[in-house]
């Protein structure tokens, strides 16, 4: 019973780390998915005194995906009240050129600012309309949420790592008699501490499996998927194989490193 209690403590601590890590990954995925949606509908308009070759515009920054010139006909059509055909043609010639530019990703405010500066380095460009005021509020909220999740995950990681170290120290104390006897007969460190590593790795595997089950449930939960689709996000919450292997790797590595630290700090009892 006591042994199960000890295992539960370590499994729960590892689960907390894995859970917060996976939440961080999901948040990141949600933001990426949302950014992709936004980037499809987002464009920058550049006004130029003279014609600029499309490739020259694309060369300005690697974020730029495509360029299309906006036809002035529609604007002129609105003004077409009593203006002669010859004058309209003259007007067309004097109007600046408008270019609609699509981006590869949905930019952050800092990226937009940087991009604007780069456009204005071209002397032909007289105005850049980035529609920054229309930057999506949901996107801003998602970025804020991501930052909060990051801080929260780091806090959980620190606290639970300390708990794991404490738990492993208890284990070491429980097994210290055996380890000391083995040491008296010249057992190398890896053999003496084998039990500690076995227990830590076993608990890491158990914690990963439990988190796998939890996120498999989440990934098929209608409520969660509905919450995402409400803000225009469609994403896979959990990739069973990739995510499980990733979480298992993190759990096993962390448990092994912490067990090794405990073993290295152990002194022989005289």
């Amino acid at each position: 019973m006591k042994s199960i209690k000890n295992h539960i403590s370590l499994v729960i601590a590892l689960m907390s780390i894995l859970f917060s890590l996976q939440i961080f990954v999901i948040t990141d995925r949600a933001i990426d998915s949302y950014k992709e949606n936004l980037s499809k509908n987002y464009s920058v308009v550049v006004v130029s005194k003279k014609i600029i070759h499309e490739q020259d515009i694309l060369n300005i920054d690697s974020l730029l995906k495509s360029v299309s010139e906006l036809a002035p006909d529609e604007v002129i059509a609105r003004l077409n009240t009593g203006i002669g055909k010859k004058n309209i043609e003259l007007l067309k010639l004097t109007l600046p050129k408008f270019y609609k530019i699509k981006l590869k990703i949905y930019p952050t405010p800092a990226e937009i600012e940087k991009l604007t500066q780069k456009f204005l380095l071209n002397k032909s460009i007289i105005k850049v309309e980035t529609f920054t005021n229309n930057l999506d509020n949901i996107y801003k909220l998602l970025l804020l949420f991501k930052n909060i999740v990051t801080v929260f995950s780091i806090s959980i990681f620190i606290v639970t790592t300390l708990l794991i170290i404490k738990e492993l120290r208890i284990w070491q104390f429980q097994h210290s008699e055996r380890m000391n006897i083995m040491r008296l007969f010249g057992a190398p460190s890896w053999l003496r501490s084998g039990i500690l590593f076995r227990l830590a790795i076993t608990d890491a595997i158990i914690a990963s499996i439990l988190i796998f089950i939890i996120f498999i449930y989440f990934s098929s939960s209608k409520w969660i998927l509905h919450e995402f689709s409400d803000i225009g996000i469609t994403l896979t919450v959990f990739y069973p194989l990739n995510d499980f292997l990733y979480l298992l790797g993190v759990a096993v590595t962390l448990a092994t490193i912490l067990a090794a630290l405990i073993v290295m700090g152990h002194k022989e009892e005289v």
Partner: protein
Amino acid sequence: MDKVIIANNLSLSYSDNEVIINKANFSINTGSFVFITGASGSGKSTLLKSLYGSLKAKSGSLVVGGVELKGVSTSKLNFLRRHIGIVFQDYKLIKEWTIEKNIMLPLIINGYDKTVTNTQVESLLKHVRLNHQMGKFPKELSGGEQQRVAMARALSHNPILILADEPTGNLDDYSSELIWNLLEGATTQLKTTVIVVTHHIPETMKIDYKHFHIEYGRIDEVN
């Protein structure tokens, strides 16, 4: 004759204030049987601890099996310990392991083949007359039987040196006699050096032995 242990001006202590063994000089020949006696607290067990490297010398030099223990590295100390068998008054058996696995411990550490290990354990269990107790855990045995298991463990890997700390301190006559016979056998048949810390030297000793007495931090050979 080769010396298995050489101590020069050896001083041992647990703290700076108190010296347990003070500038002792002695040597022990390979294959000899040695008793170390002394009153309680005289430093017998402390000396034994220093011989298996659990207590470092405060000053002086201590060479065991050709290894200088002052400033010895962990890997070298582990190597030396793999060639030493130790018997403690409180047995120091691993309670979660069966008696066979306890006896196997030095063989596992020394990397013996499983077949050799199993044969050796069976033979030793017969030797210590515990073959009928196979599969049992230490707590299921009496004190005397547990000490016989510890004795079998100390002999299992044919060590160059056996260190025994009051091995018959709490035992009945039958187990005590068996332990003394096994220790004598180790010296006569296997040419193993045996060092025994005890309060009393048994009168039934059939072989020649050396006797050191510890008093007031001094180690003197008794003729």
